[in-house]
């Protein structure tokens, strides 16, 4: 499966922008914790402890904010300033997650932006790269 080139139409962003971002962020946090608990996400949570993240899906107008504390991911408290912000369009986040495209490639091509603590960004990138999806039901969706 190759992700086709697409950008979400701008009404999506204006619509999503009016909705609370909490449900998608909650879903993301639950998924991360599930992967952590199953040992699929080989996270050294010590490296992430006390750090806050923002995943900005630009064409969806969605900012997902979460933090890591006490070996689990949680929704970011109101007003938390992210240590690391990753921004890209929805299709590019998908390509990155499904290992169709390398984050450095997207970065060189200016499709992914990284702001804040660059080393934390590297930790997150390398963490995602080291996940072995082959033993999970998601394996059939992965490009590599």
């Amino acid at each position, binding site marked *: 499966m190759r992700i086709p080139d697409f950008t979400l139409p701008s009404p999506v962003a204006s619509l999503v922008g009016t909705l609370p971002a909490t449900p998608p962020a909650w879903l993301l946090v639950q998924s991360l914790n599930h992967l952590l608990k199953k040992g699929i996400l080989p996270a050294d949570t010590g490296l992430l402890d006390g750090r806050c993240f923002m995943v900005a899906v630009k064409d969806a107008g969605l900012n997902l904010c979460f933090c890591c504390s006490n070996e689990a991911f949680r929704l970011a408290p109101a007003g938390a300033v992210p240590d690391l912000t990753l921004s890209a369009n929805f299709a590019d986040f998908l390509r990155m997650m499904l290992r169709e495209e390398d984050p*450095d490639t997207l970065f060189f091509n200016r499709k992914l932006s990284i702001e804040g603590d660059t080393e934390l960004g590297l930790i997150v990138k390398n963490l995602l790269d080291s996940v072995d999806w082959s033993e999970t039901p998601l394996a059939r969706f992965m490009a590599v």
Partner: protein
Amino acid sequence: MTDTLKLPELVCPAGSLPALKAAIDHGADTVYLGLRNDTNARNFAGLNFDDKTAREGIRYARSRGRKILLAINTFAQGASTGRWRSALDQAADLGVDAVIVADLGLMEYAARHHPELRLHMSVQGSATNHHAINLARDLFGIRRAVLPRVLTLDQVRAVMDKTDIEIEVFGFGSLCVMVEGRCLLSSYATGESPNTHGACSPARFVRWEQGAGELKARLNGILIDQFVKDEAAGYPTLCKGRFQVGGETYYALEEPTSLNVMSMLPELIDIGVSAIKVEGRQRSPAYVAQVTRALREALDTAGRERHRFSVRPAWQQALNNVSEGRQETLGAYHRPWK
């Protein structure tokens, strides 16, 4: 015509177990890795292999008839050579097919304590002529040398004529100023460089600032480059920064660019290089898969077609897409004025 020439080994990078598997699954003959510390030149947070993942990777490669090399290619620092020696002990214990070493003291240690461990001289060892290579062979029994990316094709051939040691050359990947094993530029801004700490422009010194118009790259506070909207960006290293020189601001040292020798594969096969290496242990499994697949097909095709070989657009496109700076060069291999 039967093809009697042996194809060079395709040596691909891996910074994680999924990248290692991607390299093997897409046609690498050999995969090189590093341990999770400053004994290798990609000492990045969260990258590289611990004992468990290294063992699993070696198992994966062996069961498919491929080889694993371990890069221990930084220079042991005065007070703490123990970590580098332990890395060599670990390599022997893991049973890797060879270690890639730059430091002469470590070569001596390996030759003395692990005579069965195959030694490759790293590109960081900076051996550009047959005297240096043959000396390392005579002293430490090295079996292969990785040539720095500063030689023309004719110079590579000239080195190979005067040594019986296997020669490995770079085939694809990001370029820098290529003062391999001797570059301290990163230290001027951060106090750390690849040879001493295993990383050029360590990430903790890097800040990307998105302004209203441009993206600024800062290394330890120093502005080293800025990119206008949609302009291709590169790694934030000093050698690829833009500087004011004589009233003009430009890439005074090196432009962000990638080496790509695809069009030269028939010549590299002809002169008999033993291996062609892909740069990029810091990259993700997607990059490893894309680059390995393209180079595997190109190398096999070049072996079959020899001098009728032409680069197929699909391979070129695959490599262009992942290139730093989105431009490519034959680098030093092609210097018509030499």
